[in-house]
């Protein structure tokens, strides 16, 4: 992940948001999607991404599907029903956080 500590707390929300927009995604695909969307500003490393994905799976927010693709096995992640609800809540939380920060940092825009 990018060095900025600001991004670290939002990793879970980023993953949930991406999975909410796609039916299912695999680890490498998530890292690349984030890289493209943020124009290379945010790079999620495997050391940060997979523990986060496994934690979300353990919490029952993600479901797993394994398929054989290009001579190898691929683990796809998709949102569970609880995960979908949690995504809405996390996004609201993040929007509120951004709004608060905007009011603090740049009151004119808030």
């Amino acid at each position, binding site marked *: 992940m990018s060095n900025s500590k600001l991004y670290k707390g939002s990793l879970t929300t980023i993953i949930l948001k991406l999975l909410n927009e796609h039916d299912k995604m*695999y*680890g*490498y695909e998530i890292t*690349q999607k984030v890289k493209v969307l943020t124009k290379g500003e945010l790079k999620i*490393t*495997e*050391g940060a991404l*997979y*523990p986060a994905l*496994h*934690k979300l*799976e*353990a919490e029952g927010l993600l479901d*797993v*599907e*394994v*398929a*054989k*693709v*290009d*001579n*190898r*096995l*691929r*683990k796809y992640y998709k949102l569970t029903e609880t995960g979908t609800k949690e995504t809405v809540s996390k996004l609201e939380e993040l929007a509120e956080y951004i709004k608060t920060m905007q009011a603090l940092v740049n009151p004119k825009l808030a």
Partner: protein
Amino acid sequence: MTLTQDDIQFIDNYLSSKIEHIDIRMEMVDHVAESIEAKMNKGDDRDFYYIFKDYMVENKRKLLENNKQFLKTATQKLSNAILKLFVSPLHLFLTILISYLCYYFFQNIDYSYSKNIAFIITLILIITPAIVYGSVLKFYKYERFSSAERINFFLIFLVQLLNFINISNSNLLDEKPHTILMSVMIGLIFNFVLSLSRVSITVFRDCKTKYQAIL
């Protein structure tokens, strides 16, 4: 460009010495393969082996770190599931029932004899699944799953706990007035074994459903 079956096997063989569980390794193999393919598609025309070597030099530490985190998450997930069952009304009722039955038996049957029998039965209940699991794995050459094998952690914990109780409190438990304490302990251990067994069944079923492509 897509890596060949041999290239994938090479990555898998390399990682298998560091990551023994297939559920963790297959994800890492795919990630490494995707990264190498991306480099090749961007114009890196070196042989697979050299690109792989460079990738591992740069990312090996992060990949192994992920392995540790995965095991930690698996243990946490199992602990929560066991605890949830352990405190469920049905399990608490069974704990009280077993404790009462033990107390009844201790009153009517030779205490020392029945205490030893209770310990032996509990040990058999713990050791048998571990032996069966190990044998089946070896005989059928099944892949190892981290979530399933973390159950051993709880079995070892229970064996150590029983050993501790048996050794350190042997004098205390040998005394007749402590039949209540002994009965309650057997009830709690029974509850733990039952919770662990039910969680194990769920985990094995879960592995079978999720990883059908491997099995």
